């Protein structure tokens, strides 16, 4: 017997037709990669073009990624019913922890990027990448457009470990690409297994000041806080040459002091002489293959936006419906570069749609029950303590 209810539309009526019934337009991995790469390289794409690629990817993922297919079917979403990229069911990021989402055999993946596993009992969310061509193409084009300004290459210091130390970190891979493809020769990582290499960092900063060559400092937000703390401790500041810039990402995650954003960017400006307009925050996720950037942090919260192959909707997480501009909702991202898993994810980040981008408000979770009933998090904590 079907467990269904006359009023129930949460699990909408299931589409009885097999997934390929409409017309078999399904593509293989090679075609899909070519399509996405072409799209990334295009200029002046429109809604229809985005939609077209999104629907192709949905059909491909629906056919080849079984857990995703089941997830979509439960919501009544199939290639037959999904007509717009906005209809593609958003996979909650928790699902990356519990399901093996992939269109290709996971054991053949070129890279597996994992989340840090700070929630759900330390289980880590995984993104399988059979090849990194698209990830890298997406990163390069977007990074060039949003961070590099007028430079082809710039001297870089990376305050984050290299991929050899963190093979499953998408951020390590991203920063490594940055330094390889956009750094001049003597650019380098400033973090090793033993921590931040302050001697190297201060050498590089001094050299930039002396030679008047612009310098780019990139790293996790919390690593930069450690750098700021050390510079404050020894009373050191520098004034980097004009054109220098800073990229931070990822927030503080309890790994450093928690700073208010304004305070953080003020400190960066004071310590490095880099104006807040040149302090760029990158917002990325292991569950995506592309990144968002702001255009500097003169005022916070900044407005973030993605490239033409990445779109964001601010949604009501229960209904999946878009929330009007300027009202807070949960961010759902559709990233055409995430071809092997699913294009659309439901994050746990709250945000507001604004000016063709969005402002990040913070984490949605962590509410306390208003009554005297126990909320899930507290229950799990209390139960494990008994």
């Amino acid at each position, binding site marked *: *017997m079907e*467990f*269904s*209810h*006359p*009023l*129930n*539309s*949460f*699990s909408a009526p299931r589409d009885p037709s097999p997934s390929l019934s409409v017309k078999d337009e399904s593509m293989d991995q090679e075609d899909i990669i070519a399509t996405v790469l072409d799209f990334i390289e295009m200029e002046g794409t429109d809604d229809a073009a985005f939609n077209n690629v999104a629907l192709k990817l949905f059909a491909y993922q629906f056919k080849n990624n079984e857990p995703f297919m089941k997830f979509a079917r*439960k919501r009544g979403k199939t290639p037959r019913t999904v007509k717009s990229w906005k209809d593609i069911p958003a996979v*909650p990021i*928790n*699902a990356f922890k*519990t*399901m093996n989402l992939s269109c290709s055999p996971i054991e053949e993946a070129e890279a597996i990027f994992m989340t840090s596993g700070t929630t759900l009992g330390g289980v880590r969310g995984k993104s399988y990448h059979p090849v990194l061509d698209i990830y890298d193409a997406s990163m390069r084009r977007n990074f060039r457009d949003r961070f590099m300004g007028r430079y082809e290459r710039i001297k870089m210091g990376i305050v984050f470990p290299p991929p050899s130390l963190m093979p499953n970190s998408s951020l390590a891979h991203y920063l490594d690409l940055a330094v390889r493809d956009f750094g001049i020769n003597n650019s380098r990582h400033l973090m090793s297994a033993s921590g931040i290499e302050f001697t190297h960092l201060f050498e590089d900063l001094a050299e930039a000041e002396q030679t008047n060559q612009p310098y780019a400092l990139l790293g996790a937000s919390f690593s930069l806080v450690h750098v700021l703390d050390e510079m404050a401790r020894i009373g050191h500041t520098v004034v980097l040459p004009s054109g220098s810039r800073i990229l931070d990402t990822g927030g503080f995650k309890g790994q450093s002091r928690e700073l208010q954003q304004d305070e953080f960017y003020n400190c960066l400006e004071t310590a490095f002489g880099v104006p807040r307009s040149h302090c760029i925050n990158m917002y990325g996720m292991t569950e995506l293959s592309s990144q968002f950037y702001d255009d500097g942090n003169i005022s916070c919260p900044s407005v973030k936006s993605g490239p033409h192959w990445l779109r964001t909707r601010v949604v*009501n*997480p*229960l*209904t999946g419906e878009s929330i009007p501009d300027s009202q*807070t*909702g*949960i961010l759902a991202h559709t990233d055409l570069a995430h071809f092997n898993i699913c294009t659309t994810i*439901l994050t*746990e980040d*709250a945000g507001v749609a604004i000016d063709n981008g969005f402002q990040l408000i913070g984490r*949605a*979770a*962590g*509410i*306390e*029950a*208003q*009554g*005297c*009933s*126990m*909320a*899930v998090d*507290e*229950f799990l*904590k*209390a*139960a494990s303590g*008994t």
Partner: protein
Amino acid sequence: MNERACHLPGLDPTTLDWETLLFDKSGWDLKIDVPVITGPDVQSLAEHIRRHTRQTLATYPVRRIVEIIDKAIARLLDRDDPYRRRMEEVLPAITGYDREMLRLGLTQYLKSFRKPELQRFLAEDFPNPAILDQFQPLAKGGHGLAFGPEICAHIWAGNVPGLPLWSLVSGLLVKSGTIGKVPSAEPMFATWFAKLLSEIEPELADCIAIAWWKGGEEDAENELLAEADIALAYGGNEALSAIQSRIPITTRFLAHGHKVSFSLIGREAMDAEKCAVTARLVAYDVARYDQHGCFSPHVIFAETGGTVAPRQFAQFLAHELATLERKFPRQPLSIPEASSVADWRNAEELVAGAEVVGDTDGAWSVSYLENEDGFRPSALNRTIRVVAVDDLASVPIRAARYKRLLQTVGIAVSPQRLLSLSQDLGAAGVTRIAAVGDMTAPEAGWHHDGRFNLSDLVRIVEIDGRAFAAADRLAPYAD
């Protein structure tokens, strides 16, 4: 005009800073002004309350206190009374709960505090309630007299309407002075009750203070904890342990942590005739206060072997919740609340492999599972899990793991099984077993979290039995 919360006898309101709390959840845009008080303010409040309580309330016979509370409750039960009218008007805006559900709930709740019910409160804890007024003979010999604390501190939490009334009334019945700290989520009910009591018995105006500060603000709170003879607090374990760490060791601390409750539906309640009624009652337990109460169910264990299978029962329940949504719509959800409901649905589906049904807007959700341990709290706001079990007798053993967190069990079984299941549930840590449908409305005088409402508050002063004999020796009429 903004509502004004708090009642601070002895403090000049014009010398205090005021803040405004905004309640716009239900699209109401209600503003409530609250005075900001500091450590020294709490100190002078305590001094004031202590002095006046000694002179007035502490000298009242308990029956007089019962009369005063009874009058106050009678006014709140009268729908034309201005206080009642304000409660009906403002509480839905503060809490977001459905207006009609609140109105009905308020009446039912207040009925537990009328004179006969208050007498039951007293009788429950004191075989002879006159012990609160005068020395009374004790069963063991000697005489005893019960003293309430001069100052009882109440730190309330949450927005379940009327919750402060339990401890407020308990404090009054033992003639205690009150300093209550209201939560930002619902600062008005305690305020109104204090004002109303003051109208009925003006002397009481100086024996009760209702104050507000931001949760965890240590300056005022430390002062309160230092001044109090007994401190009562509600809230999550984290908040409670933060309070506990700041209480002098000589002060009695009564903590009511957050709790979870669940229901047991026996196969005898699941035949074609009885099932619909059972499901309606269970749905009511779920919908009332949108599961925010510690007595609200999170999981329903339904037994196999009836003519209606647990899976069908889950469907009945879904139907009843859909009906209730039309009658008493769930409160509007904030984005974090909506997120936690969405997360719960996804987690049920992804992690537990449950079948999940619910309406499109997420007003209610039912998940159904078999072969599962079954305990997991809901996301609140009408999200409920139905777990099929072959024998209800297996549930207490599963529940025992969560011993410290359990409170009420809603039950629908035959009389023969009621006592035996209850015994096992009690051993597992449950403190209250109620019929389904009654979970959210405890009886007057119930033992909240298994404790005594009144006798936990008093100190018994006893005259050793031999003292009378010894005194005889010194009597002028001694031979």
